[in-house]
């Protein structure tokens, strides 16, 4: 079952990311023990130069993981007709119990790597590398995440049996079923839209506050994350209905199909980027007091928040457009 090009590409990415994670975690341990900028010794110099490589490698890992995330969902969709009863990605991911965990770990890796890169760039801007220890402690936490993601993904693909009868989205995402996903589906559309609007407003207000008065950055990050989850819930509960023009089709993956004009990308890409930038801004805000970063960070955080707001704004426009252009009337 593993003998498929997209699966091989995905495993290749996971394998390489795992290698990078292991190697940089090992290096991170060394940094935590030995890092001393005042020291002019050879070892310190070598460590400083290696940090360049780690940054480069992580940049690649994030890029590859972002592509792999798209590919993972796409491939799940494409393989759906290999499984009895599966009609889209949800069915494929449900073939065994590792499908959805693999997806969640992939998403988590994407956000973690994005935040790490933002911290890394800030660290490089400070004259005394003020965040290096934080950064490498972060890597030691990140490595298990990346490795677990790879391992779960491998288990998932290795356990794919085409003869298993799986549930497809039309079964899973109907309110009658048990479980978390059906509860999300069961979220009343009106409530979902109110929540989405509310968290959007929170993002807009806290973002404006941090851009104009330089405060509320943490609030912005938190509301960004809240918006992310609310938005996912709203996509399943109501937005997808508008895109499909169908009162009972709640699938979050079919949105990515060409039949629906790839509308999912228009929704997900800005949402993911906005959230990653908001998270990055929040994490940087923690370090704003460091002496060597005091002059640099506020401007950077403002920029991140600005970009994040643009991304969230695009997501908002995409949502409104989906509702306005739809034939479906849910309320009224």
């Amino acid at each position: 079952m593993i003998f498929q090009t997209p699966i091989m590409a995905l495993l290749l990415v996971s394998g390489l990311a795992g290698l990078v994670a292991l190697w940089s975690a090992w290096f991170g341990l060394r940094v935590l023990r030995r890092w001393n900028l005042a020291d002019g010794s050879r070892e310190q110099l070598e460590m400083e130069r290696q940090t360049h490589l780690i940054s480069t490698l992580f940049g690649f890992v994030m890029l590859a993981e972002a592509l792999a995330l798209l590919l993972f969902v796409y491939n799940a969709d494409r393989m759906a007709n290999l499984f009895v009863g599966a009609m889209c990605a949800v069915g494929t991911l449900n073939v065994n119990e590792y499908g959805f965990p693999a997806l969640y770990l992939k998403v988590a890796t994407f956000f973690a790597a994005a935040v790490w890169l933002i911290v890394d760039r800030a660290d490089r801007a400070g004259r005394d590398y003020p965040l290096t220890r934080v950064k490498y402690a972060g890597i030691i936490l990140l490595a298990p995440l990346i490795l677990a993601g790879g391992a779960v993904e491998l288990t998932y693909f290795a356990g794919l049996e085409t003869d298993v009868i799986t549930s497809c989205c039309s079964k899973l995402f109907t309110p009658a079923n048990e479980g978390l996903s059906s509860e999300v589906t069961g979220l009343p559309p009106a409530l979902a839209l109110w929540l989405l609007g509310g968290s959007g407003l929170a993002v807009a207000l806290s973002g404006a506050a941090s851009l104009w008065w330089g405060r509320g950055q943490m609030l912005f990050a938190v509301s960004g994350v809240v918006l992310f989850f609310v938005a996912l819930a709203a996509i399943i509960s109501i937005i997808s209905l508008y895109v499909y023009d169908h009162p009972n089709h709640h699938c979050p993956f079919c949105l990515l199909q060409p039949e629906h004009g790839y509308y999912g990308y228009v929704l997900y890409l800005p949402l993911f980027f906005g959230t990653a930038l908001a998270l990055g801004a929040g994490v940087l805000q923690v370090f704003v007091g460091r002496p060597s970063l005091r002059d640099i960070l506020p401007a950077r955080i403002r920029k991140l928040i600005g970009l994040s707001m643009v991304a969230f704004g695009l997501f908002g426009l995409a949502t409104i457009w989906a509702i306005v252009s739809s034939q479906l009337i849910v309320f009224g």
Partner: protein
Amino acid sequence: MTPWLRRQRALADYTLSALGRRKGKNISLVVIYALIVFLVASIMMFSSGMRREADLVLSEAPELIVQQLTLGRHELIAGGEVEKLAAIRGVTAAKGRLWGYYYDRLNGANYTVMVPDDPTIKLEQGQAILGEAIPRSRGLSWEGAPLFLSRFEGDLVKFDVVDTLSHDSALVSADLMLITEQDFRDFFGLAPDVYTDISVSIRNEREIATIIAKAEKVMPKARFVTRADISRTYQKLFDWREGLLVTLAIAAILAFGIFAAEKASGLSAEETREIGILKAIGWDTGDVIAMKLWEGALVSVGAFLTGAVAAYVHVFLGGAGLFAPVLKGWSVLYPDFALTPQIDVLQLTTLFLVTVLPYVAATLVPIWRVATGDPDQVMR
């Protein structure tokens, strides 16, 4: 242009000037790389084209085929079974199908002989409708040329060719020979009330499993092939071949990457010195890494784009000429078909990951080794 972009371009300039010093060697490197990408891309485009074709075309195949099995082999099925199947709730219709193979000793080809069961196809006794490849391979070049078939030494049966199936359907009909039921039974010496298998139409696709369960009780020895099974068979078939070939190609790219890594790590003293010079005159480790990444990026992206475009031309404009002999194997009849051109961004993403990633990964570590030299080494 921002300073960042200008810096990137200047780094690329340097990389290219440096590559230009061994022009022949580097160009052949890119060419070989592009060739591998071309092969992988051709395989992927061809396989996915075939998968899609099979998927679309066979979406109208019968919902269910019921076959009699004897000794694990496909057997003729008694006509009485047709009514049993038709009686199951949810079954719209059940029809006995008559089809088989005829080995033509004249040209060594296998024909699929079939009885059409549809009012739109008008056939009289002694007449035949042929698939596109049969007249081609038998050299029946003029209109109305009859087809003579011989079952054994001294035997000759004549069929008037009334029609040839259109070229558009070659992929499913190239070797078909349609004759009437009476001709079929006479030609193959078949008893009057047996069929090759039974095709079953089912109103609601969701009920197929239930219907099979019921039919299994009526016909415990039969085998049931659903439309989904057919589709899966084809998906798997082309997946498998694609997977096998792509694995080989990844191995080739890895070998190629290791070769490139070797080249990068076993850098000549001159090249190491050069990087020392760059660092001494004010390049940062990051600048050197970026410069070397440009080298990798230009080589791999150049090869990727060249390979992908060439593969598109090969598969969709050139009729996948390189694969035809492989696919054709030993068959005499081969449909004259062109795949529906398609370009899939995510397929290109897969191709990109599969071909560019191993190369970049293999060259990254040696690049870093080189980049971490001491800037003051050139002064010693």
